[in-house]
C-alpha cells in the first residue's frame, strides 16, 4: 500500500490523535448553559459606522445585547425605535409563528411534503429585515420566512408555494418553503447550502458597479459556514469592499451536528471577519432590538461604501431541523427551555409592556388575529389544491423556463409527456387521478 503509516522508527513519540467535537449535552443529559457568556446588556461599545474594520474586532468575541432582564433597552446599541415600529415587529413575529404552526400541521396532514420552522429565530430575520431598505436584496437561506413576511408578501402566495398548488407562482417546481419573490427583493432560495452567500456579494458588487444605492444582505446557517462558498464570499466581499451584509444565524445545530462541527469550539463565527479584515459583530440573536441595531449599523456602513460586515446572531433552534427531523435523537429535550437568551417574541412583548405600550390582552388578541389571518389564507390557498391531492400544474409547464426558448429536444419531450398524460389519466384531470 502506498503511504507511510510506520511509526516504529520514532517509537518514543506519543501517537498522534484527533479531536472529534462532542456537544455538551445529549438526550437524557441534564443541561447546564452556564458556560455561555451572557454579557451585560448595553455594555458593548458601538463604533462609528464608518470606522476601520479592526475597531469592530473586539465585538466579534463579545455579544451585543440591548434588552435586559428588566425588559428595558440599554446602552449605545439601543436603536430607539418608536412603539409603533416595535409593535409592528412583534406583530410580524406573531404572524410568522402562527404561520409556522399551521404549515407544520399542514405537512403532518399530508398537504405538503416538507416544512421548516424558524421558532426562536424570528428576530434574526424579522428585526434584521426591518432594518434594511425595502429594495435591498435579501439572499435568504431556508429559515428566513420571517423576512418575507415582514416585507408584506401575501401569506397565500407562500402557502400556494408550500402546497405546490395551482396558484404556486413557481409552478410546483421548488421544494416547499423555497420561495422566490423578486418584487419583494427576495432572491430565489436554493437547496444547495451557502451558494447564496457569494451571489449576494456579486449582487452588491453589481449595485456598486452601476452606482446604485441598494445593498445586498444574505443569511446563512452556522453549519453552512463550513462550505467553501462562504469563504469565497468573504474573500470577494473583503477584496472589493462590496456593499453587503453577511448574516450568520448560529442556531447551535446543523441537523444533528452541533456548531462545533463548523469550528465553533475554536472561534466565534463573527471572528471569521477578523481573518478577512472586514467588520464583524456578534449579537444576541434572541434580542430583537440588538438584531435590528446591528443590521442597521451594517447596512448603513455598506451604503456609505465603508465595506461589508459579517454578523453572527447567537440564537437557538427551538424546533426540529425540518418536518423530516426528530431532534430528540441527538440533543437534550431540556435545551430549549434552558436556553439562557430566552425567546425573542417574549422578550419583545415584555419590553413593550415595560414601556407601557402593550399588555397581555393586546398580545392575546394579536396572537388570535395572527392565527385567524393564517387560517384564512390557508383556507383560500387550499381551494387551489394541495400537494397531497394530485398534480396541479399542467405537464407542459415542466418544460418551460429550462431555457428561454424551448429547444427541439425539450419540445419533443413535452409532446411525449402529453401523450403519456393521456394514457395515464385519460380525459381526467390528473389531480383527481392520484
Amino acid at each position: 500500500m502506498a503511504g507511510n503509516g510506520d511509526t516504529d522508527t520514532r517509537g518514543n513519540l506519543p501517537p498522534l490523535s484527533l479531536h472529534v467535537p462532542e456537544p455538551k449535552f445529549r438526550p437524557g443529559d441534564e443541561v447546564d448553559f452556564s458556560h455561555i457568556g451572557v454579557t451585560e446588556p448595553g455594555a458593548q461599545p458601538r463604533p462609528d459606522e464608518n470606522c476601520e474594520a479592526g475597531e469592530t474586532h473586539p465585538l466579534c468575541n463579545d455579544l451585543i445585547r440591548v434588552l435586559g432582564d428588566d425588559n428595558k433597552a440599554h446602552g449605545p446599541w439601543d436603536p430607539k425605535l418608536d412603539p409603533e415600529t416595535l409593535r409592528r415587529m412583534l406583530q410580524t413575529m406573531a404572524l410568522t409563528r402562527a404561520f409556522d404552526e399551521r404549515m407544520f400541521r399542514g405537512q403532518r396532514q399530508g398537504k405538503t411534503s416538507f416544512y421548516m420552522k424558524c421558532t426562536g429565530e424570528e428576530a434574526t430575520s424579522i428585526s434584521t429585515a426591518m432594518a434594511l431598505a425595502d429594495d435591498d436584496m435579501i439572499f435568504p437561506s431556508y429559515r428566513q420566512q420571517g423576512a418575507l413576511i415582514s416585507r408584506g408578501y401575501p401569506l397565500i402566495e407562500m402557502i400556494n408555494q408550500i402546497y405546490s398548488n395551482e396558484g404556486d407562482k413557481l409552478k410546483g417546481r421548488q421544494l416547499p418553503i423555497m420561495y422566490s419573490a423578486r418584487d419583494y427583493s427576495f432572491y430565489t432560495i436554493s437547496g444547495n447550502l451557502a451558494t447564496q452567500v457569494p451571489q449576494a456579494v456579486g449582487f452588491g458588487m453589481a449595485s456598486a458597479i452601476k452606482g446604485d444605492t441598494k445593498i445586498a444582505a444574505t443569511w446563512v446557517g452556522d453549519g453552512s459556514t463550513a462550505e467553501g462558498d462562504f469563504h469565497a464570499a468573504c474573500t470577494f466581499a473583503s477584496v472589493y469592499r462590496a456593499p453587503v451584509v453577511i448574516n450568520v444565524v448560529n442556531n447551535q445545530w446543523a441537523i444533528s451536528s452541533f456548531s462545533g462541527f463548523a469550528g465553533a469550539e475554536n472561534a466565534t463565527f463573527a471572528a471569521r471577519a477578523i481573518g478577512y479584515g472586514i467588520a464583524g459583530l456578534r449579537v444576541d440573536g434572541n434580542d430583537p432590538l440588538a438584531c435590528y441595531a446591528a443590521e442597521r449599523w451594517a447596512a448603513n456602513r455598506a451604503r456609505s461604501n465603508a465595506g461589508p460586515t459579517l454578523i453572527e446572531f447567537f440564537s437557538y433552534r427551538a424546533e426540529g431541523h425540518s418536518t423530516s427531523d426528530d431532534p430528540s435523537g441527538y440533543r437534550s429535550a431540556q435545551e430549549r427551555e434552558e436556553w439562557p437568551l430566552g425567546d425573542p417574541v417574549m422578550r419583545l412583548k415584555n419590553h413593550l409592556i415595560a414601556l407601557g405600550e402593550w399588555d397581555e390582552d393586546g398580545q392575546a388578541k394579536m396572537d388570535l388575529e395572527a392565527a385567524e389571518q393564517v387560517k384564512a389564507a390557508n383556507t383560500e390557498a387550499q381551494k387551489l389544491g394541495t400537494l397531497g391531492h394530485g398534480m396541479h400544474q399542467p405537464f407542459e409547464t415542466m418544460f418551460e423556463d429550462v431555457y428561454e426558448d424551448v429547444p427541439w429536444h425539450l419540445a419533443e419531450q413535452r409532446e411525449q409527456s402529453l401523450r403519456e398524460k393521456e394514457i395515464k389519466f385519460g380525459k381526467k384531470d390528473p389531480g383527481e387521478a392520484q
Partner: protein
Amino acid sequence: MIEAINDALDTMLGRDDDVVIFGEDAGYFGGVFRCTAGLQEKYGTSRVFDAPISECGIMAVAVGMGAYGLRPVPEIQFADYIYPGYDQIVSEAARLRYRSAGEFIAPMTIRSPYGGGIFGGQTHSQSPEALFTHISGMKTVVPSTPYDAKGLLIAAIEDNDPVVFFEPKRIYNGPFEGYYDKPAAAWRSHDASITPEGYYRIELGKANVVREGQALTVLAYGTMVHVAKKVCEEKGVDAEVIDLRTLVPVDIETIEASVEKTGRCLIVHEASRTSGFGAELSALVQERCFYHLEAPIERVTGFDTPYPHSLEWAYFPGPVRIGQALDRLMADI
C-alpha cells in the same frame, strides 16, 4: 437496503482498521437515512465521525487519508450536493494514481443517496452518475437490491481506485415498481433482501441478469431495474433484463451476449436524457452489436429538465414511458 449498507460498513470496519467513515450527520446520529446508525457507538469517534458541512473538505480529506493508506468511506448526504466536492473527486482523487505513477492512490468509496421519487424537489432528486462515468480513473457503482448493496459496497471499499457508490434512495425501503398510486412493497418479501451474514463480495464490473428472455434486452440500474422488470412482466414481453450494477467498468460481455441473442435493446435510466449514461450504452451496443440489431436502440430516461417537485410522477420514467418504448421495439415481431 439501509440495513444491508449498514451491515456492509459494519463488516468492513470490523475487518479492516484502515476503514473510516465520515460525513454530515453520519457519526452520532447515524446519517439522515440511518445508513451509518450505531457504527460510531461500536467503533468509536476516530473511525466514524461527523463532518463539517463542506463537501469539498470531505472529499479532499478523503483523498489525503487515501494517500496515507486509509480506506475512507465518505458520505455525501444527497448526491445533489456532491458538486462542491466535484473538483476534488475528478481532478484529484480520480487522477492521483496516474499523475504520481502509482506512488499515491485514493482508495475511497464515496457513498451518496441519489434519484427521485421521494418528493425531494430539484435539489434532493438528481441522478448525477453520468458526470462521474465520464471521468477517467474512477468507478461508478449503483446497487438495486439489499443483497447487491452489501456485496458491492464491500467490493468497492476493498477496491484501490476511487469509487462513487450511488444508493437509489427510492428503494432504500422497498423495491419500487413504478406505481406511485399503489402501496409500496417492503424489502422483506423480496428474495434479494436476504443478505448473508458477514463478509461476501460482488465483483465490480459484473452485471446481473435479473430476468432471462429472448426477444429484447433491457439495460437498467438502480430503481429502474425494478420498474423495467415489472413492465416487461405486465406486458408479457420476453425481455432479458440486465442490472448493470457497475457503470464503469461496465460489463460489456454480458451486454454483448444478450443483445446478440435478442437483437433488440432498450436502455432505461432515471437521469436526464442528453449525455446521460444511456448515450454511452447506446453507442457501445451500436458499435459492437450493429449486425445483430433488428430495431433501433431505444432510450427511456428522465426529461431534460430539473426534477420538478410536484410533477415528479410526470418526470419519472415510469411504466407508461417504458411500455411505449417496448411497443415500438416489438412492433415488427
